[in-house]
C-alpha cells in the first residue's frame, strides 16, 4: 500500500509496462550481450539515447523548481553541435585529441554563456522565464544555421565520436557522462542545502529573499547550469551521427524535457522537485520511442500512441485521481496524504 502511494510508483509501472510489452513482442528485448568488447542490446540503446534528454531534463528540473522554465535548450543543443563540428571541420587536424578538446571547450563555454544570458534576463532583469528563454529559442537555431552556413556539417574524428558512440568499461560513454553529472547534481542538491534553497525560491521567492536566501544568484546559477548541460547534450547528439544538423538537432527536446520532468512528478508550479523522477521520465520517453519501432506502430498513429501513454501516466499521478483511487480502498480515505509527503532523496 505504501508502495502504491509512492510518487514514483506509477511512472515506474509505466516504464516496466513498456519494457514488458516489448519483451512480449520481441523475447530477446531484455537480453544484453557483449559485442566487440562492449555491451549491446535494446536496454543499452535506450540508456545511450536517453543520455542527452536526461541532461537537458536535469537542468530543466532545477529551473522548473525555481518556478521557471527554459525553452531555449533545444536551440542551445543545436548551437553546441554546430560550434564543435564547425571548429573540428575547419581545423587542419580533425583527428587530433587536442582539436577535439578545444572544440568541446569552446562549445561548452559558449553554451554556458548562453545559459548565463538566460539567467541574467530572468534573475536580474526580472523578465518572465518563458519570454526570456523564448528569445534564445527563436534566435538560437538561426545562430546555429549561420555557424554551419546552412549545411549539415559532417566530420570524421574518432576522438569526437567517443562522446556519443564510444564505450568505456563496456558501457556507453554518453550514459556515463550523463550519469556522472546526474550523481553530482543529486549530491549537490540533496547532501547540501542547495536543493532546499532552490525549493524555497520556487515556493516563495520573496519570502526566501527576506529570509536571507540569495534568490538571484540561485536562479542565475540554475539557468547557467541548464545551458551548460544542454551544451553537453548537444555534443552527444552531434557525436552520435557525427553531423551537426542546425535545423533538427535537439528539435522539441525542450518539450520532451519538460515532459520528463512532469512525468517524474515535479510540479510546473515550482518548489519540490524529484531528480529520480526526472530520470525515470527520461527513460520512459526514450523507451516509448523505441517501443513504437519495435511494436511496428504505423508512423501515422505514432503521435496518438505516445499521447495515450503520456496521458495515462500523468493522469495516474494527478492528485484528484489518486485521492479517488485511495478512497475506493476498504481502509477508507486518507485524503491528501500523498501530496504532503516529504520529498524522497533522489537517485
Amino acid at each position: 500500500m505504501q508502495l502504491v502511494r509512492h510518487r514514483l510508483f506509477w511512472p515506474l509501472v509505466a516504464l516496466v509496462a513498456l519494457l514488458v510489452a516489448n519483451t512480449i513482442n520481441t523475447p530477446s528485448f531484455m537480453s544484453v550481450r557483449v559485442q566487440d568488447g562492449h555491451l549491446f542490446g535494446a536496454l543499452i540503446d535506450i540508456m545511450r539515447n536517453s543520455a542527452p534528454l536526461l541532461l537537458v531534463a536535469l537542468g530543466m528540473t532545477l529551473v522548473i523548481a525555481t518556478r521557471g522554465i527554459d525553452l531555449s535548450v533545444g536551440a542551445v543543443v543545436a548551437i553546441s553541435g554546430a560550434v564543435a563540428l564547425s571548429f573540428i571541420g575547419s581545423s587542419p587536424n580533425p583527428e587530433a585529441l587536442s582539436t577535439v578538446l578545444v572544440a568541446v571547450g569552446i562549445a561548452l563555454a559558449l553554451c554556458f554563456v548562453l545559459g548565463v544570458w538566460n539567467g541574467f534576463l530572468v534573475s536580474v532583469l526580472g523578465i518572465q522565464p518563458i519570454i526570456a528563454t523564448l528569445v534564445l529559442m527563436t534566435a538560437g537555431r538561426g545562430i546555429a544555421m549561420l555557424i554551419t552556413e546552412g549545411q549539415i556539417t559532417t566530420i570524421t574524428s574518432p576522438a569526437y565520436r567517443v562522446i556519443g558512440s564510444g564505450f568505456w568499461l563496456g558501457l556507453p560513454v554518453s550514459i556515463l557522462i550523463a550519469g556522472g553529472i546526474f550523481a553530482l547534481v543529486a549530491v549537490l542538491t540533496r547532501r547540501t542545502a542547495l536543493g532546499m534553497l532552490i525549493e524555497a525560491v520556487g515556493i516563495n521567492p520573496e519570502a526566501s529573499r527576506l529570509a536571507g536566501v540569495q534568490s538571484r544568484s540561485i536562479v542565475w546559477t540554475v539557468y547557467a547550469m541548464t545551458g551548460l548541460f544542454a551544451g553537453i547534450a548537444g555534443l552527444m547528439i552531434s557525436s552520435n551521427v557525427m553531423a551537426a544538423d542546425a535545423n533538427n538537432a535537439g528539435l522539441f527536446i525542450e518539450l520532451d524535457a519538460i515532459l520528463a520532468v512532469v512525468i517524474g512528478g515535479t510540479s510546473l508550479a515550482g518548489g519540490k522537485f524529484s531528480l529520480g523522477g526526472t530520470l525515470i521520465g527520461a527513460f520512459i520517453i526514450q523507451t516509448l520511442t523505441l517501443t513504437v519501432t519495435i511494436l511496428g506502430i504505423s508512423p501515422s498513429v505514432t503521435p496518438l500512441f505516445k499521447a495515450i501513454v503520456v496521458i495515462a501516466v500523468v493522469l495516474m499521478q494527478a492528485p484528484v485521481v489518486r485521492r479517488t483511487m485511495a478512497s475506493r480502498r476498504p481502509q477508507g480515505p486518507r485524503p491528501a496524504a500523498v501530496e504532503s509527503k516529504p520529498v524522497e532523496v533522489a537517485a
Partner: protein
Amino acid sequence: MKTTNFTKRMFAAGAAGIMALSLTACGGGDSGGGDAGAGGDSGGGDGDLISVGFSQVGAESGWRAANTKSIQDTLTEENGFDLSFSDAQQKQENQIQAIRSYIAQGVDVIAFSPVVESGWDAVLEEAKAADIPVVLTDRSVDSQDETLYESFIGSDFVLEGETAGKWVVDNLGSEPLNVVELQGTTGAAPAVDRKAGFESAIEGNPNIKIIASQTGNFTRTEGRQVMEGFLQANPDIDLVYAHNDDMGLGAIEAIEAAGLQPGVDIKIVTIDAVKDGMQALVDGKINYIVECNPLLGPDLADIIKDVVAGNPVEKRIVVEDKAFDQAAAAEALPTREY
C-alpha cells in the same frame, strides 16, 4: 583565423536576426497591395533585376542544403535577379507568412518548395489576385486549380522509388530478402511517392518482403534510432531502403554499433545522392543510390525569365535523375557539385 571566422558568423547572426524582424514587420503592415502588382514589375525596384521571393522548406538534409545553394548561386544579381530567400523551418505557417510578405513587397515572381501538399489555395489565390506568378520547385501542391501556379520543376519521386526497387529486384531478388524501410516525414510527397514506387517495383517478386517500415523524418538522428529498434526487433534484416541518404547514414551508424557490416551483412539502398551518401557508397557502406537532383537553380532561373517575358512554360518539368552503384559512384564522386 578560425576564431575570426567564428566572430564574423556571430555578427552575421545578430544582423540577420534584426533583418528578419523588420521583414516580418513589413509583411504584417502592408495589406493593400492587391492591385499594386498589376504592372508586373512595379515593386521590383532595382533597374532591370527580376525580384524573386523564394521560400525554402528548411535545411533538414544535405539534399536541401545543396538545393538551397544551387538556387542562391544561380539567382544572383550578376544573372539579373534580386533574390529574397526565406527558410520555413519545415513549417507551413512560416511558409505562408513568407509568401504573404513577398506578395506585400510586390516581387516579380514567387517560387517555393511546399512543405506539405495541401492547404495552399488561399495564399496562392492572393498571389494570383496580386498578379504575381508562382513557380513550384521540388515538391508540388494538390490544388485542383492548376492556374494558381505557372510551373512545377522537380523530380519524379515515384520513379525514384521504382528505380530503387527495380535494382533490388534485379540484383538481390533471387533469394528471400527481408527489407526494412526508413520512411521520410509522414505525409510528405517524397515519402509517400518513394514508398509507393518501391512497393510497386517489388510487387511481382515473392522473395522480397518489407518486414518493418517506420518514419525517420529524413534526419540522421532519427534514422539511427529507428534502425536500432529494427535491429533489436528483427534479427534477420537483409536490406535497408531509406527514403533519403541522411537516414541511410544514420542507419549505417546503428548497423556498425550492432557489430555488423553495412553494405555487406545488411545492404543499403537510398535516394538523393548527396556528397556524404556518395562517399559512403564509394566506401562500400551503401550499395545503391538513386539520385534526386537538387541543382534546380538553373532550371528555375530559365522558367522565371520565361514567365516574366510572358513566354508560355510547361506545367510540369521533370528533372533528370541518375542512379549510382558503387563503381559508378567512385567514377562520379570527384566531379560532383554537391
